[in-house]
Structure formats: structure tokens, C-alpha cells
């Protein structure tokens, strides 16, 4: 799939399948994520979205399929060699380290010079608006602030890819809304390819460049928020993203008027055109 493109996809998944015992978590998922875009994996709990993210992160091993990052096959690499940053729902900040040390954590491993690390930490904390909290400890910060520290920590080593695992689910509604915008703004500014897992359709519609709607371990639809909302590919997508009324009926007669809309073409006229069905 990357053959024709001048630049290979930032992340390419080819036929990913995953089983937990007899339970099939992912069935043959193929997907390409372009450099710089923010993609949301959206679906109900148990649809496989988190498993897919963990496979990309190398935290879970797939039973079949390939993971490529910028053209390089990373399927066999341990997490540390995949060059991504990750933010978890539960923040997972080190409680015994200050905010600055938390952000510096991933940099220290790469043996950068002290001054360089300090500079980078300051830049990032300024970026997420927490410069003045540098010497505090995670327990002294609010949930939203902690999640911003987690974001800064993930971004500090300049990863090629940012993974967000339900980053806003643990926060209250108002903080969630403002952080939504902030993450989006930051992601645009840094141009870092981002994959976010969420079960909140509003969050996906508000933040994503493209939404991957998943159900039962398979991809139901991939598209921009507008196209997923206005042209749902399946009843599942129609119902999961926004509200949808369904009316069962039988086609009485078809006239060739040319197709309109997603599945459009046969348009009923008046009430007699369809028979009401009992559900």
C-alpha cells in the first residue's frame, strides 16, 4: 500500500489478528496512518481498540500480521525500540519523582547532557502550561494537570509517534473539554503522528483527522468525522456515532433515479410505501 506514495505511512498495520485463548480480539485489521495525522480508534468496550493500540506499542504480541512504522517492520521489536510516547488513562506518573524528573525520565535513559535535558524539560512544561509546577510532586496536582505532565513526559524524547490510551476518560467533563482542545493544538503544532483510543464518540468527532470505528475486533469504517457521521457505512456505525432511527420495511418498487447519499437510491413515497415491521 505504501508502494505508490512518496512517503511511507507513519504506521501501517497489515492483517493484524489477535486471540486471547479462544476469544478473538482482532480479526485481520489492515490500516495505514499517514504522517502527522491524528487518528482515533473508536468503539464500544471489548471491540479490540485498546488491544490494537497495545500491539502497535509492542506491549501485546499479535498472532498474525505486521506492524510497520515509517516503512520499517517493527513486529519483532520490544517496546523500547519502537520510538513512540504513550499516555495512559491512569496517568501512571512516578509518584516519588517531581514533575520535572518525571518529564526528564525518558531523556535520562538516552544519556543526554544535563543542561540539554533541563532545557527540554522546561520547554515541554511551558508547552503544556505547567512551568510553575516544575518542583511539585504528582500528588499535589489535579487530574488534568497530571495528565498534562504525562503528555509532556511522553513527548519529551521526541517520539515519531504518540499513543493516547483513553487519555481523558478519568477526568471530569469540563477539564476533558479544555484538554481536548489543548491536545489537538499541541499535536498540530508539533506535527506528531498520533493514535488515540476512545469510547467517547464526541471526543473522537471533536479531535480526530480520521476516525477508525471498530466493532467485534474488526474495522467497520474509516473516515473523517464528517463522513463517518453523515455517511455511516453500517447500522452499527450509524448507531454508535450519534443517534439514529431505524425503520424496517420492504421495498415496494424501484425506479432508477441514480444513487444519492451513502446507500441511497430507493426512496419511499408516503406511508404506504413501506410496511411497518414489528421488532
Amino acid at each position: 500500500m505504501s508502494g505508490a506514495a512518496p512517503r511511507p505511512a507513519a504506521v501501517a498495520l497489515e492483517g493484524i489478528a489477535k486471540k486471547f485463548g479462544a476469544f478473538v480480539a482482532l480479526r485481520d485489521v489492515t490500516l495505514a496512518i499517514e504522517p502527522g495525522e491524528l487518528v482515533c480508534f473508536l468503539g464500544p468496550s471489548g471491540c479490540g481498540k485498546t488491544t490494537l493500540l497495545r500491539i502497535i506499542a509492542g506491549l501485546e504480541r499479535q498472532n498474525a500480521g505486521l506492524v510497520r512504522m515509517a516503512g520499517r517492520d517493527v513486529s519483532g521489536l520490544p517496546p523500547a525500540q519502537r520510538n513512540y510516547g504513550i499516555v495512559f488513562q491512569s496517568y501512571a506518573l512516578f509518584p516519588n519523582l517531581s514533575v520535572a524528573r518525571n518529564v526528564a525520565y525518558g531523556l535520562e535513559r538516552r544519556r543526554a547532557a544535563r543542561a540539554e535535558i533541563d532545557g527540554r524539560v522546561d520547554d515541554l512544561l511551558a508547552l503544556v502550561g505547567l512551568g510553575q509546577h516544575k518542583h511539585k510532586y504528582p500528588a499535589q496536582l489535579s487530574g488534568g494537570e497530571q495528565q498534562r505532565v504525562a503528555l509532556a513526559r511522553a513527548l519529551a524524547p521526541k517520539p515519531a509517534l504518540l499513543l493516547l490510551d483513553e487519555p481523558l476518560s478519568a477526568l471530569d467533563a469540563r477539564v476533558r473539554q479544555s484538554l481536548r482542545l489543548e491536545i489537538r493544538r499541541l499535536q498540530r503544532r508539533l506535527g506528531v503522528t498520533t493514535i488515540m483510543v476512545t469510547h467517547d464518540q464526541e471526543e473522537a468527532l471533536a479531535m480526530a483527522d480520521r476516525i477508525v470505528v471498530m466493532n467485534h475486533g474488526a474495522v467497520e469504517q474509516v473516515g473523517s468525522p464528517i463522513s463517518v457521521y453523515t455517511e455511516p457505512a453500517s447500522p452499527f456505525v450509524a448507531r454508535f456515532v450519534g443517534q439514529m432511527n431505524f425503520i424496517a420495511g420492504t421495498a415496494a418498487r424501484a425506479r432508477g433515479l441514480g444513487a444519492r447519499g451513502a446507500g441511497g437510491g430507493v426512496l419511499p413515497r408516503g406511508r404506504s410505501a413501506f410496511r411497518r415491521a414489528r421488532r
Partner: protein
Amino acid sequence: MTLAIRPEEILVGSGARESPNRLVTRVRGVQFLGAFSRLSLTLGEESETVLECDVAANALAELDAAEGAELALALDPGALRLFPATSLIDMALVPGDLAGRIPDRTVRRRLGAEDVVRYALVAAFALVLFLFVLYPMGQLAWRSLLDNQGHFVGAANYARYFGTPAIASSITNSLHVSLVSMVATVLLAFAYAYALTRTLMPWQGLFRLVAMLPLFAPSLVQALAFIHVFGNNGILTRTTGLNIGIYGAKGIIFAEVFYCFPHALLILIAALSATDARLYDAARTLGASPLKTFLTVTLPGVKFGLVSACFVVFTLVMTDFGAPKAIGGKFSVMATEIYNQVSGQQNFTMGATVSVVLLIPAALAFVVDRIVQRRQYALVTSSSRPLEPRRRPLADWGLRLLRAHRGRDRGLYLTILVYSLVVRWPYNFTPTLKHYAFDTVGGYAPIWNSVYVAAWTAIVGTALTFVGAYVVEKCRTAASGPSICCRSCPCRSPAWCWAWPTSSRSMPRAAC
């Protein structure tokens, strides 16, 4: 076919008049949602199809859409979507054989540096286990099949063991003492731990500290203390003339209860502390009595702690040598029996035989322990709220009084101290320090030997235990089960059986 339309795309009021696809519906419900309201509409009396329709707040005013009213609406052809009827079912869309086509093995991962370290640790630890646990145990088992000249005699030793009434009775004696001590210790420790964790009992810190005292002395000391208080020449016996006959099973049980109390207490405090307060809130709001709350929330929550406390106490008593030797009199238990056979009669094969028999209850305890552990569910999740004890004056002070008997315990140590400070108990009470001079038995050398051995055991044992626990917990491999089994074996047999570094015995306890 299935038609689909979004709630905000349904036309109502004036907009519906000129549109095709007009319907007359009945309003079943109105939900006010702020900027708009959502109407639930039925297509007719007999229909179960419900349409949801979003209407802006200002448009709703002119509709007069009260519940039960008729409402005309139109489905704009341009907004209708069409799906095949079958796709309405939430598909488990995949043919059944797909699961079969996914390979069972996950993809291979290249070995990182961490993995190499991990496997090296597993290998090293396996070697240590083999050298210090499996090999000596094998030797022991093999030895029990030989006679004293080294000839293979099969099960003859066992036949002789069970055939000699005097020796065989040590089995029932051991079981008797262990079971009684177990029940007594765990009951006492549970009440004590409950008082420490669940009430606002005054002076908690002091009580916690005091209860830990027996940890610092071998069981031998408890036994000696009991002799000094209740023995033929004990304080109580001499002052009241009441001799309760402390030598024998009674004395062993008393001494063991004191000796094992802190071990059980530590486990039960941990178990009682790890509780989700939300369950207690739920029980209270549902009107459960304190007894019902205790039976349905507290006990199930600490079930595992209780079981493991039982096993720890049982095996501690089963394998203890000091107390029975000191206070047991003629009452012979398995641990002293081994000592008699090996040290007294130079009968190594019989010693080995007893050791192997001693492993059987231990092995049983291990299996039950594992089964219980497997059924243990996560009691404390990330959303749990720790339980804050509430002030209950009656219980707080009641349990404190209950604890007062522990003062007796402190008295025991005091007795030993006083004993050692007088010239010749109970005939001459002149204070003296001469017993601390140790001039006859090699001076202070035994103390320094003890410190030396203990220090090395602490260092080596802790290191080994840490590596072992790390290997088992972080590098889950097929070898985990057996290795846990191997490591806990030393816990279940007297140190006497282990002519090996002491660490092999202390290790499993630290790992637990």
C-alpha cells in the same frame, strides 16, 4: 430493507407540510436536553417502532407537543439512508472458521537485553534451587530408603517407623499440637489484628509494637518463660501452690501460640487493611446488621489471609524444635524425634525417614494454599477507597480490654530478665550480673557466632529471595509453579533437616 434517519433530520411543524414521506405519529415522551428537546414518537397504536426526533427549543414552543398529542412529521428523502435488512443485527459478522485460521502462537520477538538478563536469572535461580533445595531433598529421600550401613532396604524404614508405637505417636502428637496451636493463634491474632486495623483503639502503636516482641526471640525463650512462671519452681506455682502441669502438650501449645502470634498477626493485619470501604458503605445503606456485614464483607475479604495465617502457624509449629525440646517433657513430637534419632542414637536413616514423613502435611498445605490463592479475586482495585475506622467507643475500649491479657506476655519476658539477674532462682534473689559473664561456656563467642550467621543469612537470604520473587513474578514461565513449590519446601521442614545454609529456610517466608 432498513431505513435510517438521524433525529435532527426529521422535519416537524411547518417544514413537514410540503415534504413527501409524511407520517402522523403520537408523542410518547419529551426529554428536555438544554438547547434542544428529544421527542419519542410512535408510528401508531399497535406499532412498536419508536422514532426519536430532536427539536430546537424555540421550535418546540409552536408545536404544542405534549405527551399523547398527535404530531405530523416528514422524512426528508435526501436525509434517508438505506441498509440491507440483515445488517441491522449487530453482527458477529465473521464466519466461524476465522478463529481457526488465526495461529495460536504469537509472533516471535527479537531478544532484547532485558530478556537476556531475565533468562540468565531464571537459569541461575534454577541452579540455586537445584543445588540447595532439590538435591538435598533428594538426598534425604534417598537416605530414608537405605539402612545405616548404606544398603538399599526399600520402605523398611517407613515400616519400622510406623510400626514402633513410641515413634509413631510423635505423628499424632505433632498434629495435635499443631492444630490446637493453629486454631488458638489465628483466633487470637484475628481479634488483635481487627482491633488494630478496624477500631480507633487507644495506644494502637504501642500495642502493635508489643505484639511483635516474640518475633525477636526463638520459641525456646517462650517455653523457658512459661517454665519460669508455671513450672514446678515457677513464680505462680510457688506463690499460689497451684501446679497446672505445664510440661507436655499444654506447655508446648502455650509457648507456640506466643511464638507464632506475631507471624499470624502480620498476615492478618495486611489482609484486614486491604479492604474496599465502598463495600461497607453498600452494606450499611442496605441495612445489614454488624454481624451480617462481618460475615458477608469482612470474612470473605480476609479469607485468603486467614487461610495463609493458618498454614504459616501450622507449619511453624509442626517444624518447631525449640519449644517441644524445652517444655515438652516426655511428650515427643516429630521434630524432636528427628533430633533424638540423629543426635541421640546416630540413626541417620530414621532421621531422614521422619523428615520425609514430616514433608507430607507440608506438601498438602502447599497444594491447598495454591488452590485457595487461585480462587482469590482482586479485593482492592484502582478505584477502591481505603477503609477509615469509625469511632465506636464500646468496641474500641472493649477490644482494648481484651488485649490486656497480652500484658501477661510482656510479663513473661520480664520474668526471664529478672531470672537472669539474680544469683540462683528461686533460692537467692540477690541481684547479680554474673550470669551474663558467660565464663564457663566459651564467653561471648556464641553471641558473636549468632550475629555472624544471622548477618550473612540476612544478606544472602534477602538477595536470593528478591531474585527468586523477581524471577517468579516478573518472568512468568512454565517453571514458575514448580519453583514456588521448591522454594516453599524449606518452610515446611525443620531447619534440622537442612545441613545447608540457614538462608534456605528463612527464604520462603520472606518471599511470601
